[in-house]
């Protein structure tokens, strides 16, 4: 009872702040609303028994990526948006949005979407711990993808230097 009440409050904040992201005239305000949305998402992860995901959400998204987004806004010096919104875009967006909403409701009520449960269920997560399970999968079963990730980061480092350093 208390939990669903808490969920409803956080969900309301998440929806409102994500609406603010796209309606704010000042890009910095949008960015700050996005931070709020990220924090709400982190709360959802906690409620879904995934505290590690929540920590990553805060560390990487709300921390690092938001810094980058704010820097980009300042780099491009985007001022308050002045352009008029085209009605076509609003119309197309609402039609697609309604379609997606309809689709989601349809599948939710019909219940034809059945996933397959993996080995990791809530009981196991509560018994062993979320971080332990992720770590165990990451460092044994997914060892090769884990090592490839470092190659991917290396490529990204080279790319960042090549493309944005003034003098190379």
């Amino acid at each position, binding site marked *: 009872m*208390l*939990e669903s009440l*808490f969920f409803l409050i956080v969900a309301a904040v998440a929806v409102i702040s994500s609406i603010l992201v796209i309606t704010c005239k000042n890009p910095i305000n949008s960015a700050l609303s996005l931070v709020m949305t990220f924090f709400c998402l982190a709360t959802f992860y*906690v*409620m879904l*028994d995934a505290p*590690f995901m929540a*920590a*990553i959400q805060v*560390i*990487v998204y709300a*921390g*690092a*990526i938001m*810094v*980058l987004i704010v*820097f*980009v806004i*300042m*780099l*491009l*010096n985007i*001022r308050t948006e002045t352009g008029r919104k085209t009605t076509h875009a609003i119309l197309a967006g609402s039609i697609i949005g309604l379609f997606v909403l309809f689709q989601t409701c349809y599948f939710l009520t019909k219940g034809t979407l059945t996933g397959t449960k993996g080995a990791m269920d809530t009981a196991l997560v509560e018994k062993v*711990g979320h*971080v*332990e399970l*992720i*770590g*165990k999968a*990451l*460092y044994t079963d997914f*060892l090769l993808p*884990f*090592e490839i*990730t*470092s*190659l991917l*980061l*290396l490529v*990204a*480092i*080279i790319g*960042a*230097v090549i493309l*944005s*350093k*003034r*003098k*190379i």
Partner: protein
Amino acid sequence: MLGAYLPIIVLVAVAAAFGLGSIILSSLIGQKKPSDVKMSPYECGCDPVGSARERFSIKFYIIAMLFILFDIEAVFLYPWAVLFKRLGMFGLMEMGVFIVILFVGYIYVWKKGALEWE
């Protein structure tokens, strides 16, 4: 289930209350005698000219990008640290490979002078 997170919720609530409280209280209790000097951003020194929203140098951007990349590296260290003893020598080796590859990137960035404020 959420009981374990109660301290965090309390902390967030206290932080929000403190922030809001300071603003509201100071506007309620404080005296208001505005003058030109008081309203200017800096009370002494030159008068500020132009908007504070100047274009940023791309230098900030590259630092932020490198920060994200090494931040993601750090994310992989958390579960490893939790399992460190259980993974044993093997865990140390696999993380060693991971770190060495990124360390090459770090040396590259350093030698290239991307961390210098040119």
